[in-house]
């Protein structure tokens, strides 16, 4: 991968190699000074991850629509108009001095969705208004009696059952046979018969259109990020994303209600399905980090938050397979970047798991008591986040400055801390965001 003898390297050596690659991207920086600034920022994060005291607390709020909205764009423009977004992106980064690129992973590829009739989300002009972010349409896309289909052959289940339900253009895929039918010459003819039918051929045309839209999207976004990186010396915060297996079931396949009832009605199947999804989740994060030469993989956590499960059920249904995903990624030298949305107060004991090596992942929090976080995770894993959504959207600069100062004073003293937001930021008061960052620069340098 990054070296010829990759397979022989230890996890720590892989970690170091990925960090080196992150610090030395294939980008023409505008000047040596900008390059130095970039490398200093990478070092801030690396020090925080390795539980050292960085020169200053690194600042990484989750930016989603805000960079566009704050420059006068509608949400719809932010998603649809690459030219307008590229300009807004540059202005945003010139104005807001955070330590990472805005989080382009959240500016979802709506042109691709349009080409596919994507049903899992609503987005501006498709179910939600012009100024709304994308939203999730939760439903039982996998039926209660389909666990064995998933467990026996996840790819087959995804292609022939799940995708035709969530992507309108892929409905004809349900008429195709599994690709694993292609074992000998005589089976080849029957396998390709459905590909001759008009609905499947129409589907392939739509997939080609989606492919063109996806290619344009990645080219425009790569250029946009590279430009901001070269001009301002800003690293990205993640190279890809993956999910906890229990969340794949709860968010993507069964829906919250479906999964919560399954926990009572077919607990063994839930556990088996989670296990089956472990290598798939590791592979997804790994591939993205390899392609993007970035050491961190974003893992948003949902259905294991406080209130969603008892501690015993968290330790039985949620943590074991998330832990396997974390260990699989860490073994590859990747730094899992978990974002525990909602409260995680009841989970702090469970996630302080001695089998996860210290200083090799990041925990970002939302509505979790940061004193408790420091108590449980301090000196064990890097942590951060927590600046509340209510303060960001309805607060005032003084309140924000006080909050950030107090937070840094309370929990950042020993290093291993990243200043971040408890929410993914769409609408917000610009003066609050600015104050959050400026207070981070000011007080974060004193620890």
């Amino acid at each position, binding site marked *: 991968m990054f070296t010829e003898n990759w397979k022989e390297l230890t996890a720590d050596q892989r970690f170091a190699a990925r960090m080196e690659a992150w610090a030395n991207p294939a980008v023409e920086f505008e000047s040596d000074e900008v390059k130095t600034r970039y490398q200093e920022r990478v070092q801030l994060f690396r020090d925080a991850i390795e539980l050292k005291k960085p020169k200053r607390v690194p600042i990484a709020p989750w930016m989603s629509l805000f960079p566009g909205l704050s420059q006068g764009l509608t949400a719809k423009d932010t998603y649809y108009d690459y030219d307008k977004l590229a300009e807004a992106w540059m202005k945003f980064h010139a104005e807001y001095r955070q330590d990472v690129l805005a989080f382009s992973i959240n500016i979802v590829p709506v042109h691709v969705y349009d080409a596919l009739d994507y049903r899992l989300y609503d987005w501006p002009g498709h179910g939600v208004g012009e100024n*709304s*972010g994308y939203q999730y349409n939760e439903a039982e896309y996998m039926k209660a009696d389909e666990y064995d289909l998933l467990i026996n052959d996840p790819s087959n289940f995804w292609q022939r059952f799940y995708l035709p339900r969530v992507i309108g253009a892929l409905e004809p895929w349900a008429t195709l046979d599994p690709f694993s039918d292609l074992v000998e010459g005589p089976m080849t003819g029957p396998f390709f018969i459905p590909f001759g039918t008009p609905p499947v051929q129409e589907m392939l045309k739509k997939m080609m259109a989606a492919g063109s839209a996806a290619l344009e999207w990645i080219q425009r976004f790569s250029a946009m990020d590279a430009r901001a990186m070269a001009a301002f010396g800003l690293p990205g915060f993640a190279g890809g994303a993956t999910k906890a297996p229990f969340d794949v079931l709860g968010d993507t396949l069964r829906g919250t209600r479906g999964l919560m009832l399954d926990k009572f009605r077919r607990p063994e199947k839930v556990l088996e399905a989670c296990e089956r999804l472990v290598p798939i989740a590791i592979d997804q994060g790994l591939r993205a980090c390899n392609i993007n030469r970035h050491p961190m993989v974003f893992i948003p956590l949902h259905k294991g938050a406080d209130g969603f499960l008892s501690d015993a059920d968290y330790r039985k249904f949620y943590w074991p397979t998330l832990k396997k995903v974390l260990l699989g990624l860490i073994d590859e030298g990747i730094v899992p970047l978990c974002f525990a949305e909602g409260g995680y107060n009841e989970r702090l004991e469970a996630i302080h798991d001695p089998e996860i090596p210290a200083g090799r992942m990041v925990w970002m929090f939302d509505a979790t008591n940061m004193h408790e976080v420091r108590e449980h995770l301090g000196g064990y894993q890097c942590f951060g986040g927590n600046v509340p959504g209510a303060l960001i*959207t*309805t607060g005032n600069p003084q309140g924000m400055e006080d909050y950030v100062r107090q937070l840094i004073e309370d929990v950042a003293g020993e290093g291993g801390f990243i200043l971040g937001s408890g*929410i993914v930021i769409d*609408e917000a008061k610009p003066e609050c965001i600015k104050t959050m960052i400026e207070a981070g620069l000011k007080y974060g340098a004193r620890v």
Partner: protein
Amino acid sequence: MTEGLTQAIVDLREDDALAMVDQLLAEGADPMGILDDCKRAMDVIGERFACGEAFIPELMMAGEIMQSISGKLKPHLTSAPSQEKLGVVVIGTVEGDIHHIGKDIVVTMLDIAGFDVVDLGVDVKVAAFVDTAREKRADVIAMSCLLTSAFDAMKRTVAAADEAGIRGSVKLMIGGAPITEQVVAYTGADGYGKDAVGAVELAKQWIGGA
């Protein structure tokens, strides 16, 4: 009163609970008595939720069992349950937000607690909240959200209720993961429920004090 049924629901033994209801009905038991057993069980589960011994899956499963039992009882009820409703709650997820999981749990809990619940669904326009509250002579408007960008829709709904002159007779409640006292102040609402049980408690307090 049937201790066995109440306990089966409290333990979330779905199959047992439903089989017991079938048997009770076959033996000619009073359907209203069965409903009382269910209500007692739901009170226990609500208490457990409030003190952190039960969680969202338990509420959902209990709601599911209740729904199945109601279906079984319906043909046996000669008239609607005569129990007087505690009050009318008009509820929905506010405009611009389509999340329904939290709102649905609150609907179930309010219903079981004895409120007359009018569920307007998701992405509910400001006027729909106010018009429905007036039409149904509501005691409470309950607004749900998951997105911080939905705070403004809550604020507009509160303002519309002001303008319609119904604040004297209707209390406005908000709820959802990002809601804090600060958001209550921002929107001008009367209060917030921290979770489903908190929402029911708040509604009871308001109606009791009205």
